[in-house]
């Protein structure tokens, strides 16, 4: 009997088929993005975009392990945190600039990932999920308790970033958001291209074969343990870079902000809401989630209503919306997540694709 799930999972893309027009679109899109800091004056908008880039990196990184290889880790906070902490510890206590420290973070993450992989990949299904959570929690509690190394719960606050120099020329001193914008943009694009590269390589086929059927893959000469670990390392490295970027940008980390289950869940949410196993899914997920949660947080809805003159700011409705929507934004967020899962199990991208195909057919 064929697994009935295949009908539902068709949306997960498989490799193949190069198209020129999307590439052109992509190139012009990237060019436009790169021009943003020159034209957009609002640093608020830049801030949101930087956070979006970090989210894209996180979601795409998870996607390589979760989406392509089918290993649903809910413990990616471990890698995010290891990256963030290594960078910040080196910066704060050893005065090593973050663009070097980041690589140390990557190194530490690779070691971490291999250890975690050797433990967790012995398990499958729900056991793997729970083990990944447990590992991340161990990291969080350890970071809390290793006060000498991590400064414990007090966290690490970085007040000044050394300028990035090439020889004696200062390239940027990181006083504005623009360098962070470009760093984020370039890294995000890099992750997307790596994902694309992986998808169109032997590695990608092997990952997907493991996702589809580990035993069948094994019989075709694929060593599942090896390739799962490769996927994990790639995924963890990018997550670690996202962590470093976040830490340097925000300037403060503590175990609760970088190692918590919330971070892991957030990472998974980005990928799933967007659509896993696709290059663009996590990108869409990140854009939608960051924008949406910021819009909800800042009560953009009420402001828009007031601005449009539909609701008077001082009327009872206006006051009610102002007071309550700001309290309810996580509630609304939760409701949206539930709606997406129930009605768009393939994520936004999958949903959009289905509508397009349906239209074409109809």
């Amino acid at each position, binding site marked *: 009997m064929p697994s009935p799930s295949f009908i539902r999972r068709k949306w997960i893309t498989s490799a193949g088929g190069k198209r020129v027009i999307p590439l052109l679109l992509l190139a012009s899109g990237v060019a436009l993005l790169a021009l943003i800091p020159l034209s957009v004056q609002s640093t608020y908008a830049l801030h949101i975009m930087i956070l979006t880039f970090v989210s894209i990196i996180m979601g795409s990184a998870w996607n390589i392990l979760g989406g392509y290889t089918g290993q*649903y880790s809910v413990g990616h906070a471990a890698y995010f945190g290891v990256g963030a902490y290594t960078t910040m510890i080196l910066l704060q206590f050893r005065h090593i600039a973050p663009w070097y420290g980041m690589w140390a973070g990557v190194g530490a993450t690779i070691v971490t990932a291999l250890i975690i992989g050797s433990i967790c990949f012995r398990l499958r299904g*729900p056991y793997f*999920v*729970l083990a990944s959570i447990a590992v991340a929690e161990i990291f969080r509690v350890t970071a*809390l308790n290793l006060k000498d190394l991590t400064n414990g719960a007090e966290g690490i606050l970085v007040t000044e970033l050394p300028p990035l120099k090439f020889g004696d020329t200062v390239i940027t001193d990181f006083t504005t958001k623009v360098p962070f914008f470009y760093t984020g943009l370039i890294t995000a694009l890099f992750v997307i291209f790596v994902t694309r590269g992986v998808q169109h390589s032997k590695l990608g086929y092997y990952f997907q074969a493991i996702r589809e059927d580990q035993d069948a893959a094994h019989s075709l000469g694929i060593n599942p343990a090896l390739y799962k670990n490769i996927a994990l390392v790639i995924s963890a490295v990018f997550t670690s870079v996202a962590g470093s970027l976040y830490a340097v940008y925000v300037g403060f980390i503590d175990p609760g902000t970088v190692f918590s289950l919330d971070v892991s*869940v957030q990472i*998974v949410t980005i990928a799933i809401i967007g659509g896993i196993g696709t290059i663009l899914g996590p990108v869409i997920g990140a854009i939608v989630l960051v924008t949406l949660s910021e819009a909800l947080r800042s009560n953009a809805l009420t402001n828009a209503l007031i601005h449009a003159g539909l609701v008077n700011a001082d009327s009872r409705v206006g006051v009610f919306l102002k007071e309550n929507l700001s309290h309810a934004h996580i509630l609304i967020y*939760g409701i949206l*997540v539930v709606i997406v*899962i129930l009605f768009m199990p393939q994520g936004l991208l999958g949903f959009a694709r289905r509508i397009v195909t349906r239209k074409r057919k109809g």
Partner: protein
Amino acid sequence: MSIFVQSLISGILIGGVYALIGIGLTIIFGVMRVINFAHGDLLMLGMYATYFLFTQFHIDPFVSIVITMPLMFLYGAFLQRFFINRVLDALPQNQILLTIGLGLIMSNTVMLAFTSDYKILSTRYSSSSVSLHGISISLPLLVSFAITTVITIALYWFLLKTDTGQAIRATAQDREAARLMGINVKRMSIIAFGLGSALAATAGALISPTYYIFPQVGSSFTLKAFVITVLGGMGSVIGATLGGILIGVAESIGGVYFGSGWKEVVVFVLFLLVLLFRPSGLLGKSRT
């Protein structure tokens, strides 16, 4: 030595409550194969129900269980009927995200209704204790342990002796064979989730006289419930009972000998070790 005994006893007593949380999760997992990330939030709802009944109607927290339990059973049944049942065949990560979303909805709804203030439920006996040979035992904890024991025994009786209870176990062991016995497995799922919710809520009610209540209280219990369930073997009720007590004791003793900060590490390392060397849990049968 007396510190050891003290920790052991308080560990066992608190472990009883943990056991209830774990049993609830294990029943849900056993029947549905869904990891319920909203389990702690169900517990939180139980706490608020207890708090509400206590402050509004002056019903003793331990007595209010008779109201909270059936209420939360119905709530859990509702969740299963309208939400969880829809994703039973879905990808596991979607199931997880759904329960996470439901948890967010629960905790934030409660926050809107009750504000995010810490609520303290103070009864006459909240801080009283009995002393035995220099070992002090919290009275409310003792009572809650007794109630836990009664509920657990009642639950065993239900699962082992009644038709519905056996049908739930049958559904957990072989869903299709259960259908062939004329068991309505959808209804069993609803009962199982209701039961899981009711047990989580009861655990919430039982610790509310000695604990505190706020909308986000659930998350740490969700994690704890995972550990307990895996430790005992996912789907094994006896395992969850033992797992709960084991975690209670491990935390308590770990707190003394490794320091309070590291006791969580002790628990999670224990958890990983079990996952690695006995992934089916201490008492779980290995499943293929």
